C-alpha cells in the first residue's frame, strides 16, 4: 500500500462505554474493508494482548490503516485508532483522540448512555472531533433506540447523522462507513505559528516496545513528512535521534518510505526505553528549533501507589525481572524497591489508577505463576512542612504512604487529591448512592436526570475514598446498574490523620495508614477488631491499640492462651508429636515478631483493606471495572 498521496484520508476512532461493542464494531470494519480476511478474523482483533482479550479490556491503543472504496467509487485511506476505554488511561485516550478528526460514539441500544459514554464524548468534543453517534446491538429485542437517541440529544450530541447498527450481525456497518467518510473532515493542519509550512510536526499518541527495534512510537503526522534516516527530535524530551524505520499498520506492521501529513503510522528511532518517549510528545526535525509541542501534552504522573510483594517471598528477583518487562510496555508504571519488615522485599509501584493496578498485578501473577500481594494502596498526599525559621515558606513534600509522613509537629498542612466523579445510576437507587458518596466525603456538584429512569450525579470526591472498595460498593447497592467515571480535580486541604497500630505498646510501622479525621474512629475500630481476630492467642495477653495522631482511639485484646499441651505423650506418640511441633515451629517462623508478639502475615494484609464490609484482600480484588 502506497502512502497517502492524493487518496483522501479519514482519521477516526471508536469510543464507547465498556461492553457497548467498540471492539466488535472495529472487527466488522476491519472485515468490511478487507483489511483482515474473514477467515483470519479473531474476535476483538484490535485488542492485542491476551489479557485485553480475556477481560474485554482495551489497554493499549492500536491503529489500523484501511482502504475503503465508497459507493461512488472514490477510494479513502481510513486510519482507525483504537483507544483505551478506561478512565485510568484518560490521558492516553485524549492523546489518541487528538490524533483523529472524527469519533464514532457507540451506545448500546439496551443500556443507553453510561458514564464512560459521557466522559469519552466530552473528551472527543474537547479535542474538536466530529462525532458520529451510533446505536449498537439493534439486533436485540430489548433495544430501545428511541430512548438512546433522546439521551444523546440530552447530552448535546448532534444526532442528525445517527445510525442504527449491529456490530454482531454487521447490519448497518456499510452505511456507517459511507457516512463516516462523508461527515468526518479530512486531516486538519495545525496553525503554522509562523514556522515554515511543511516542517514536520507529528503527535506521538502511543508507544510499544519491540525487542529488535526498541521503542516503536505511534504517530500522527500533522504537517511535513517523516522518512527513514531523518534526524528527528522529541520536542518535550529534547532527545535527538535518527529514524531507522517508518511504517503503517495494515493492520499488520508494514514498512513504508515516508509518512505524509495527515497519515498515521509508527516510527522507530533507536529509543531504548519508554521513559524517553512520552505519549503526547511531538516529533520534529532535529534542526527545527522553532518546533513546539502540539497542544495537550503533559507528563503522566501516578495517582495511586501500592506495594507489591510476592506472596511466597523469595521470588523477589523473578518479580523484578517481570516488573521491568511490564514497564517496557507501560510507561505509566513506576517501580522502586521497597523493604517491609513484615512482608520482606517488594516494590513500591505507581499506577494511573486502580484498574491499572489490578492489571499490573494480574499480569505479574500470570507472568510469574505466583500470586502477588498488593499492600496498602495509597494516593499521593502533599504535605507542607514548617521551615526552621519562623515565617519562612514551607516546602511541599509528596507523601505516598504513612511512613513517609513527616512528624506531626512539622506539618503545616496536608492536601489530598480530589476527583470529579460522574455516576450514572437508576433513579430508584439515587438515595443509597448519595449516602455512599456522602460517606466517602463527597461534595455534590450537580444532579441531573438523563431521562426519568436515569440520574447523573457529579461529585467532588476524595480519591483516597475511592481506591479501597468504592466501586464494589457502588455496584452492589445498585445491583450492577450504576456506572462510574472520574477525572482528577487537583489537590485540596484535608484533615488527614496518621493511624498507628500498637501491639503491647510497640508501634508496628507496616500497619500505619493515613485516614481522614471523619473516619478515623470507624477505621480504627474495624482495624483493631480484624487484627485481634487474626492474631493468634499467645502466652500473654496482647493489647491491639490504634492511635490517631498519637491518641489511642481503639483497643482490642487478644486474650492469653491458657492451655496448649498434648494430652498424651507415650512411646508411640513421640515421632508424630515431634513432627507436629516441627510444623508448628515452621508456622511460627513465618510470623513476624513485634516485640514479643507473634504477628501472622494476614495481619499485614488486613491493614490494607480497611473498610468494614469488604472482605477480599486487595490482592484478589474482583474487578468489576473494565473496558
Amino acid at each position, binding site marked *: 500500500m502506497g502512502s497517502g498521496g492524493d487518496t483522501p484520508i479519514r482519521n477516526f476512532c471508536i469510543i464507547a462505554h465498556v461492553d457497548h461493542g467498540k471492539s466488535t464494531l472495529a472487527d466488522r470494519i476491519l472485515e468490511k474493508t478487507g483489511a483482515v480476511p474473514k477467515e483470519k478474523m479473531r474476535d476483538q482483533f484490535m485488542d492485542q494482548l491476551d489479557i485485553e482479550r480475556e477481560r474485554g479490556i482495551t489497554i493499549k491503543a492500536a491503529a489500523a490503516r484501511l482502504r475503503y472504496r465508497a459507493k461512488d467509487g472514490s477510494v479513502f485511506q481510513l486510519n482507525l485508532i483504537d483507544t483505551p476505554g478506561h478512565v485510568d488511561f484518560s490521558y492516553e485516550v485524549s492523546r489518541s483522540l487528538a490524533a483523529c478528526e472524527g469519533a464514532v460514539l457507540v451506545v448500546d441500544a439496551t443500556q443507553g448512555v453510561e458514564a464512560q459514554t459521557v466522559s469519552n464524548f466530552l473528551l472527543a468534543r474537547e479535542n474538536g472531533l466530529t462525532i458520529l453517534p451510533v446505536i449498537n446491538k439493534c439486533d436485540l429485542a430489548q433495544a430501545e433506540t428511541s430512548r438512546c437517541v433522546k439521551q444523546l440529544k440530552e447530552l448535546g450530541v448532534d444526532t442528525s447523522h445517527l445510525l442504527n447498527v449491529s456490530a454482531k450481525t454487521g447490519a448497518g456497518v456499510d452505511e456507517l462507513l459511507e457516512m463516516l467518510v462523508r461527515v468526518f473532515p479530512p486531516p486538519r493542519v495545525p496553525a503554522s505559528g509562523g514556522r515554515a509550512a511543511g516542517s514536520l510536526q507529528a503527535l506521538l499518541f502511543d508507544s510499544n516496545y519491540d525487542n529488535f527495534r526498541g521503542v516503536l512510537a505511534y504517530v500522527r503526522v500533522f504537517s511535513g513528512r517523516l522518512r527513514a534516516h531523518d534526524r528527528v527530535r522529541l520536542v518535550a524530551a529534547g532527545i535527538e535521534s535518527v529514524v531507522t524505520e517508518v511504517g503503517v499498520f495494515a493492520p499488520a506492521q508494514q514498512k513504508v518510505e515516508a509518512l505524509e501529513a495527515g497519515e498515521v503510522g509508527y516510527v522507530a528511532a533507536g529509543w531504548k526505553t519508554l521513559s524517553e518517549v512520552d505519549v503526547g510528545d511531538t516529533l520534529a526535525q532535529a534542526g527545527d528549533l522553532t518546533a513546539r509541542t502540539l497542544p495537550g501534552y503533559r507528563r503522566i504522573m501516578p495517582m495511586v501507589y501500592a506495594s507489591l510483594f510476592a506472596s511466597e517471598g523469595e521470588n523477589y528477583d523473578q518479580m523484578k525481572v517481570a516488573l521491568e518487562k511490564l514497564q517496557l510496555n507501560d510507561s505509566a508504571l513506576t517501580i522502586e524497591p521497597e523493604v517491609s519488615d513484615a512482608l520482606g522485599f517488594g516494590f513500591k509501584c505507581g499506577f494511573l489508577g486502580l484498574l491499572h493496578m489490578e492489571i499490573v498485578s494480574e499480569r505479574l501473577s500470570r507472568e510469574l505463576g505466583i500470586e502477588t500481594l498488593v499492600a496498602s494502596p495509597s494516593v499521593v498526599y502533599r504535605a507542607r512542612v514548617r521551615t526552621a525559621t519562623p515565617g519562612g515558606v514551607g516546602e511541599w513534600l509528596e507523601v505516598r504512604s504513612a511512613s513517609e509522613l513527616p512528624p506531626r509537629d512539622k506539618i503545616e498542612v496536608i492536601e489530598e487529591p480530589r476527583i470529579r466523579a460522574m455516576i450514572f445510576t437508576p433513579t430508584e437507587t439515587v438515595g443509597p448512592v448519595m449516602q455512599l458518596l456522602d460517606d466517602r466525603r463527597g461534595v455534590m456538584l450537580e444532579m441531573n436526570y438523563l431521562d426519568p429512569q436515569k440520574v447523573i450525579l457529579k461529585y467532588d470526591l476524595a480519591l483516597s475514598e475511592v481506591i479501597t472498595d468504592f466501586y464494589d460498593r457502588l455496584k452492589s447497592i445498585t445491583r450492577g446498574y450504576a456506572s462510574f467515571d472520574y477525572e482528577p480535580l487537583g489537590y485540596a486541604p484535608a484533615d488527614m490523620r496518621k493511624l498507628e497500630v500498637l501491639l503491647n505498646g510497640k508501634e508496628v510501622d507496616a500497619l500505619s495508614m493515613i485516614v481522614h479525621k471523619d473516619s478515623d474512629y470507624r477505621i480504627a475500630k474495624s482495624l483493631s477488631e480484624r487484627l485481634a481476630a487474626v492474631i493468634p492467642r499467645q502466652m500473654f495477653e496482647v493489647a491491639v491499640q490504634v492511635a490517631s495522631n498519637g491518641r489511642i482511639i481503639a483497643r482490642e485484646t487478644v486474650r492469653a492462651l491458657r*492451655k*496448649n499441651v498434648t*494430652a498424651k505423650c507415650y*512411646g*508411640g506418640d*513421640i515421632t508424630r*508429636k515431634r513432627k507436629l511441633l516441627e510444623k508448628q*515451629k515452621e508456622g511460627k517462623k513465618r510470623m513476624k515478631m513485634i516485640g514479643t508478639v507473634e504477628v501472622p502475615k494476614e495481619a499485614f494484609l488486613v491493614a490494607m483493606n480497611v473498610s468494614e464490609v469488604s472482605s477480599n484482600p486487595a490482592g484478589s480484588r474482583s474487578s468489576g471495572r473494565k473496558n
Partner: protein
Amino acid sequence: MQPLHVYVHVPFCVDPCGYCDFYRGPHRMDREKTFVRALTGEIKMRLSERKRLDTLYFGGGTPSLLSDESWMEIFSAFRQHAEIFTESEITIEANPASITVAAAKFWRGIGVNRVSVGVQSLNGDILLYLNRIHTSENALDAVRILNETGMDNVNADLIYSIPGQRTMDVIDAIDRLSPWIDHLSAYALTIVPGTPFARRGVTLPDSDVVADQYERIVDRAAAAGLERYEVSNFSRHGAESRHNLNTWRYGACVALGPSAAGFDGSRRYKNIADFLKYAKAIQSGELPESESEEADPSTAFWDRLMLGLRTREGVRLSPDERAGLAAIADSAGLGDHLEWTENGARLKPDKIVLLDEILTRLRVAAPCR
C-alpha cells in the same frame, strides 16, 4: 546391667470407642492364639540377653480380654528371657467390664501388681456417648475389687473436655474413685483424624472451658492426695508409673506386639500395625517393623525436652545443655517460665499447661544447626 522396660500391645477390643485411634481388631479365640504365638516369638527375638525386668506394661487394645492360658504362656516366655523380681512393675490395662474378683486374683497370682482401669467417666450418658462397653457401677466395682485384691497400684483413666460434659462430672468421678486408687490419668479428649468422632465432626469445647476443667481437676486430685507429676498423670506419693516415667526420661523401652513403638536409646522403631502381617513376619524370623529412625543429636535434645518438661521432675541436662537452654529461653522471652534444678530444668507448675506453645517458641528462638 541395664534394667529392662517392656511394652506389649494387645490388639483386641470388644467394640471400638468413638475417640480411639489405637490399632486394634475384634477379639476371637483363634486370633488370640495367633497373637500369643507371635508375641512369644517376638520376645525371643528382642530379649536375647536375660536382663533384669524393671517394668512391663500391657497396653492396648484391651489386655484384660486375654484368657488365663494366654497369660500363662506369655509370662512363662517372659520369665525365660528376663529376670522378673517382686519389685518389677507389671501393669495391665483393663476394661471395667472384664474385671472380676477371680480375674484380679489370677492376675495378681501371675505377678501383675498394677492395673490401669479404663473408667473414662462415671456418667452413664457420657459412657454411651464414648461408646464404652461398661457402666459406671462396673467401674466403681472394678477399682474396689482391684484395691481389695491387693494390687500395689490401681490407676483409673478419665477423660475430660467431652462435648456436653460438666466439670462437676469429672470432679465427682475423682471424688468417688479416689478411695480405691493410687494413680489417676486424666486426658483431655482429642479428636484424632480417622476416628468415628472425627468423621462425625465432633467439636471440642472452647479452649478456655477446657483450661478451667483442667485446673479444677488438678486441684481436686491434689485434695484427694493425688498429685500431678506429669501433664495428665497424678499419683499418691511413690505411686508414679515407673514405666511411663522411663519414657519421659528418654529411657529405652522394648516394644512388642503389632503397632507398638520401641526405643533402644538411639533408635526408635514401630512394629507393623497389621495383625496378620505382624504375625507373618515373626513366623518367618523377621523383625516385624514398619518404621525405624535414628535420632540425630538435635532431635534427641528436643525429644528429651518434649518428654521431660511434661513432668514435675523436669528434664535432666548436662551443664552445657543447661546453659544453652537458658540462653534460648531468654531470647524467647521465656526465662521466667523455667526453673533450674541442679541437674536440669523444669517448667514452673503453672506453665506446664502451655508446654506445646513453649516448646515451639523455644525452637523458633534456638539457633539453627
